[in-house]
């Protein structure tokens, strides 16, 4: 597991609908002999089978910031818990935050961008979602929380694969891809997975945004178009004008922020030798120049949105209008 950013403690957010296998994964991470120590923030004590004095109970207290950003909800309890855990620095290598089965991952993720202390000393590593291969299809129909967790994920464990056929597995993977074509999907049984596939992902680390390659499985995207949640990716081989792009993306995320769950981009600006990368959670955007474009890579700008009720045509037109 590599460090997310120097001196910052990596934080992994573990989500998944009730009964998907989250706690099994957590127990596995804590008990495997990897030589790492983790502080764990859980919602229900007693489920963790490991004796660990760094297991902390949380209350999932979500509140809205008073900063005029209507979707800017954060986890107040998490700010306090992480502040407390940081006083025991040296005692652990990473923090794992387990959410309840019905939780929206956004307030958890936003906490790491909104609070100064938390943001300065820790770094969100990835949102890992455990999904039940047998029941996910049903949950995507009746549980908006389950859909949020899939849409938000950087890593998805498609768990309990022993309970379904290969055909059913492919079907559920296509449904996942229709919502989120960017997450890494791993098929598992009893949440059995190598720890380095779950931790140390650097999914929110701007330096590690290497490429944005949507994975549209065998036309599944078209086949299983999700009425409610969509993802769109647009690319341009013509350089963009930063004076057009930034006002557009800021206005867009201000207006459509509640509907945009995640956004990400690698951009080539006119007369700029550097790649510009950004990523966002609802209205909160984080971006920076990353590194010079290499001679052997195409200066292709690509942008991605995952969200609800997004207007594909308007988004694409807005993006195209940013060409210099």
């Amino acid at each position, binding site marked *: 597991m590599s460090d997310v950013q120097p001196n910052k403690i990596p934080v992994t957010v573990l989500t998944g609908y009730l009964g998907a296998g989250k706690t099994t994964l957590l127990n596995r991470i804590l008990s495997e002999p990897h030589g790492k120590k983790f502080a764990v923030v859980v919602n229900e004590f007693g489920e963790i089978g490991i004796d660990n004095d760094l297991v*902390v109970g949380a209350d999932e*207290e979500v*509140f809205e910031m*008073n900063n005029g950003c209507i979707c800017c909800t954060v986890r*107040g309890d998490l700010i*306090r818990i992480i502040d*407390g855990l940081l*006083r*025991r620095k040296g005692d652990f290598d990473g923090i794992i935050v387990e959410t309840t089965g019905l939780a929206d991952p956004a307030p958890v993720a936003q906490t790491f961008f909104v609070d*100064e202390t938390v943001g300065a000393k820790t770094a969100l590593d990835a949102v890992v979602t455990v999904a039940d291969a047998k029941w996910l299809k049903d949950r995507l129909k009746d549980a908006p929380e389950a859909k949020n967790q899939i849409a938000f994920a950087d890593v998805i464990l498609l768990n309990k694969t022993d309970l379904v056929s290969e055909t059913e597995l492919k079907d559920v993977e296509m449904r996942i891809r229709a919502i989120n074509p960017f997450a890494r999907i791993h098929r598992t049984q009893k949440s059995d997975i190598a720890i380095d596939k779950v931790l140390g992902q650097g999914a929110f680390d701007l330096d590690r945004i290497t490429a944005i390659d949507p994975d549209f499985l065998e036309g599944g995207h078209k086949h299983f178009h999700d009425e409610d949640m969509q993802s769109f990716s647009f690319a341009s081989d013509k350089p963009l004008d930063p004076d057009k792009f930034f006002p557009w993306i800021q206005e867009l995320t201000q207006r459509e922020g509640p509907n945009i769950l995640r956004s990400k981009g690698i951009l080539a600006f006119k007369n700029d030798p550097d790649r510009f990368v950004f990523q966002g959670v609802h209205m909160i955007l984080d971006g920076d120049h990353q590194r010079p474009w290499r001679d052997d890579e195409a200066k292709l700008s690509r942008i991605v949105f995952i969200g609800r009720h997004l207007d594909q045509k308007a988004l694409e037109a807005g993006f195209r209008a940013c060409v210099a």
Partner: protein
Amino acid sequence: MAALSSPPSSLTSKLRPVDVGGAVAGVRFLGTTAAFALEGGAVVLAGEEETRVEAHKGAILSVTGDARRLITGGDDGRVVATKADGSTETLFEQKGRWIDQVAVAGDGAVAFSAGKTAYFQPVKGERKSHDFPSTVGGLAFAPKGTRLAVAHYGGASLWFPNAVAKPEVLEWKGSHRGVLWHPEGRFLVTTMQEPALHGWRLPDGAHMRMSGYPSRVRSMAFTNGGRYLATSGSGEVILWPFGSKEGPMGKQPTMLAPRDVRVSAVATHPKDEVIACGYEDGLVLMVRISDGAEILLRAPDGKPVSAMAWRADGGALAIGTEGETAGLLAF
């Protein structure tokens, strides 16, 4: 050598470094002994000699104290009182919980909180508790009488632990994380998750919004007599005027000791309108409010000042940093 016609602008040579060996969570004077509470769980007592007491089996999350006792709350579920002689007493213990906040009253009564539950332990008598709707962000005893201000989401509550009545709620949207009474009990001020303070005028509950900070306010204190509220969070010490019955509304704050580094901690002198002002680079200035005169007390060492306290007679200042350095300065 020429005689000095003006006061010296630096007293750094009088600063005695204290080897605390850990990040300082809070500091108090117990008589002439400075008691440094460390984030890692120990207390370092710096009198004529320095002694180290392992007060907690984990992190110290909150610190308060009176003239005789340093009172700390820890993630080991304990509230511990440490005296200048190095003796400790466990005032409360609940395994598996964190003691997030502690407060002490003038008569020695203690209040503390674990999650949503606030506790009141009188000097004599039974412990009382009350569950608030959300986690307690701050606790403070009123200057007189047995009344507690409890900061939480959506405002603050005034709790009379000896009364049957429900706590009185002062509402204001957002997460309130620290709470302080005006020395005359006329105002209540909270620090918020956003870079702002909120205040209520008591008893009519009129709102006071104090905003414009570039970062969250972590440290605030009223000057002796309560004319000013000194606060951290900006590149200068911000002083809100609380001398009149109206409080600071419609008035501009006074800004002193501007630097290009943010103020991280403030401590008001127990007698005079003088403030010790600590910055994120470890520098500490003593600032006189009347004319803004500054005296350098500590040179910067790159470690953010996290806690400061004056001795009760105003003759000494204890300074602690996040970066495991500390100092004691007697005037």
